[in-house]
């Protein structure tokens, strides 16, 4: 090949342009700290990185959900614990009130405390977390029991929130499970003085208590109990009236309701420990995907820095040699 001025010039210009381009791309990798700066840099890795980012975003989102679920369930747990403690006290007071040796004065004191407790329990039933009534099911904008004599105003809907790609967790306890007589056994009791007490749950989950005479036919008294709080309230009224038979009839609802609260406590505890595990799993997945994302997209600074040093050295050599080639021609020697 016949080498002439143009070829030399062209070759040098192209080589310098090529080196400049290499420096530019290497520098881009350094300045963005990423080796993929556009899909065409490495399409497969770009799509992988995009998928990892979506995955990491989901994990972050699920973490938020889990945090919310935890907050919400912890609130429910506190309420249910309080309820349990309250039932313990109701139990004590009832035992005390039913004790034959007690007089009307002490029964009055029991009645007063039970009345307060019934309103305290109503407060628990209508407690709110972040603006929502927690025991009203899906009707969380409404009180579960607008008054102490109301039947359940909520529904049995579960608020399920996604805690990972495939699982959901119910984060609420509906009031019908805790504060109504849903599932109360329809049975009868016979008192030591041969009177009969009949229990019958109604369709609205209230409880109808009938006290019959020794002939088991004459109805002495009918008590309609709208809900558990109403039951405690009516119990206090019975003590106030010194009516131990009525109090005896009403006291049956305490162990039943307390048992429900214990079940709820267990369920909430189980859910909370599941959430804790879920959090750990998510922390692990988060770390794994972050590592994968970094492998795919992040620059290895040492490698790129070495690369830049190499390019720089060859660019310098190129400049030096081109300066030599172009500094002289035969024309310089014509005198």
């Amino acid at each position, binding site marked *: 090949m016949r080498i*002439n*001025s143009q070829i030399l010039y062209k070759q040098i210009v192209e080589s310098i342009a090529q080196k400049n381009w290499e420096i530019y791309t290497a520098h881009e990798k350094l300045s963005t700290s990423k080796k993929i700066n556009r899909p065409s840099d490495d399409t497969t890795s*770009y799509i992988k990185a995009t998928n990892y980012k979506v995955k990491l975003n989901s994990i972050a989102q699920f973490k938020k959900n889990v945090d919310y679920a935890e907050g919400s369930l912890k609130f429910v747990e506190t309420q249910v614990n309080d309820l349990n403690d309250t039932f313990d006290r109701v139990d004590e007071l009832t035992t005390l009130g039913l004790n034959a040796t007690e007089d009307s004065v002490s029964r009055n004191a029991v009645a007063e405390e039970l009345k307060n407790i019934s309103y305290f329990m109503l407060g628990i039933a209508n407690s709110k977390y972040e603006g929502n009534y927690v025991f009203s099911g899906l009707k*969380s904008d409404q009180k579960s029991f607008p008054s102490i004599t109301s039947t359940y105003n909520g529904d049995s809907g579960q608020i399920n929130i996604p805690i990972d790609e495939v699982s959901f967790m119910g984060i609420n306890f509906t009031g019908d499970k805790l504060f109504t007589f849903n599932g109360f056994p329809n049975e009868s009791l016979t008192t030591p003085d041969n009177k009969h007490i009949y229990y019958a749950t109604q369709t609205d989950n209230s409880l109808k208590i009938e006290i019959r005479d020794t002939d088991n036919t004459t109805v002495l008294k009918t008590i309609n109990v709208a809900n558990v709080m109403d039951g405690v309230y009516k119990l206090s009224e019975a003590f106030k009236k010194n009516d131990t038979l009525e109090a005896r009839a009403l006291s049956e609802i305490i162990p039943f309701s307390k048992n429900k609260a214990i079940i709820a406590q267990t369920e909430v505890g189980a859910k909370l420990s599941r959430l804790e595990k879920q959090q750990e799993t998510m922390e692990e997945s988060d770390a794994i995907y972050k590592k994968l994302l970094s492998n795919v997209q992040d620059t290895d600074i040492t490698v790129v820095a070495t690369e830049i040093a190499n390019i720089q050295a060859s660019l310098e050599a190129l400049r030096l040699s081109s300066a030599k080639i172009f500094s002289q021609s035969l*024309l310089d020697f014509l005198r």
Partner: protein
Amino acid sequence: MSILSIFDIGKTALLANQTAISVTSHNISNVNNPDYSRQEVILGVKTPIKIKDSFLGRGVSVDGIKRSYDKFLTDMLVNQENTLGKSSILKDITSQIEEVFNEANREGLNGAITKFFNALEDLSVNPSDTSKRIVLINEGNSLVSQFKITEKSLEDIKSTIHLEINDVVKKVNSIGKELTELNKKIAQLEAWGNAQVNDLRDKRDALLKELSGIVNVTSYENSDKSLVVMIGMRNLVNGGVFNELSMEQISDTPRFKLDGIDISERITGGKLSGLVDSLGLINNEVLYKLRKLAAGFSNEFNIIHKTGYDLNSNLGKDFFTSLSDIHYEEYSQNAAISFISVNNFSNLKFDEYYINIKAGNTYDVVNKYNNQIITSGNYISGSPIVFDGISVTISGAVSEGDSFFISPLKTFLKDFGVKITDPKEVALASLPNSSSDNTNLLALLNLKNKTLGSLNNQNVYEFYNTLASKIGVLSTSADANLKFDQNLYNEISNKKIAAQGVNLDEEAVNLIRYQRSFEAAAKVIQVANELYDTLVKLL
């Protein structure tokens, strides 16, 4: 033989060397002109005269000035310029499109979709939270804007391409005119004898090369030395005659005519072909899929949203604006579309269709992208044709070859928006009067992973990623093609420059050589003069 003849011989040498120095200077002055072919003086012996039994030389003559020219390499370079013209514009445009979808260092459509779903997910724990509902509506609006910005960026690229096509057509015509003028001059100047007008031929070659970079051309030299230049088998230039290349837009696609014939399909190389191909890529691949994604996703979202209940316990309305304005184009003499609307939102597939009228008053509804026949039947004026959720009524007499283009996508993003403004109207419950019910919200959230018929049985992310990766792959291969073509071009170009280029050292040597010869010739004249002087002094 007289002493005076020595003067003549010296004179021929002086003139010849002077010419050679001129040519050398011309070479030196064009050392950086890439289209210039090095020239060389061809020296010959002057016809000798007979003296007795022998011949006496009469000096030197300039027989010609030859340019170093390799027709094969020049033709190859012209062809390679054509390939390179196309691959370099394709690389330019694919990288521009790629930047629109590049989310490596910023947030784009993928990010907006994710944020929208995040807002929905945030609501899942507390569906009645008004502030979170407002965030959802805002994120919906951001998503809509992102779709619109993406479309706008692509439309901007398209406008630039259209402008460039206009410029390129003008350039083709101006080169055509210049070639015609050069043809005339070359034919005129070379009409006598065999001498070639080197510099004008270099210029003509350069113009042809430039033209080839723009569009695929074929050319040959006429017997009168003028060049015939053809695009798509039609003459752009024939000797001194020039035909103008014209362009018109038909439905967003440029059509080219030369010498009365539509040559659009025959434009297969050069920048022009690259521009037209890029336009096709943006229209038929990128914009089509972008609009399909927006339309398919929002339609499905609306369908689910409408099955839920809002905070006022009313059934949900459309969350996003639904398809209302279906774009159509009519290619018929006597028939026209009298009614067009959505027939069933659940059946919408969001494609683009042609209703083609065939012989015997029958019609086919054809998918523009895969040419599949969706439905066909007998044409009855005024009777609705229903396909993929769309109902079209054509009225009037049709004839074979009539065609109607139906696109639920073309103007979709222009009207696209979030329809709901009152946060209470976001329908997230599946039951009325259930403010904490998130069942419908979960169904909406499920759209993240749900494959949709209108998105080619992919979910939203898969569909978008397929598009982004396709653009990435196109850009990568355009880059690889460009590098390959550039290398080949450089290779040929180097060979051509090696054969035709100027070497300054060579020219310096020539300069000394011819200067020395010139000095020697002057000496000859000086000697002749002295001889003459000696004789004169004898008198």
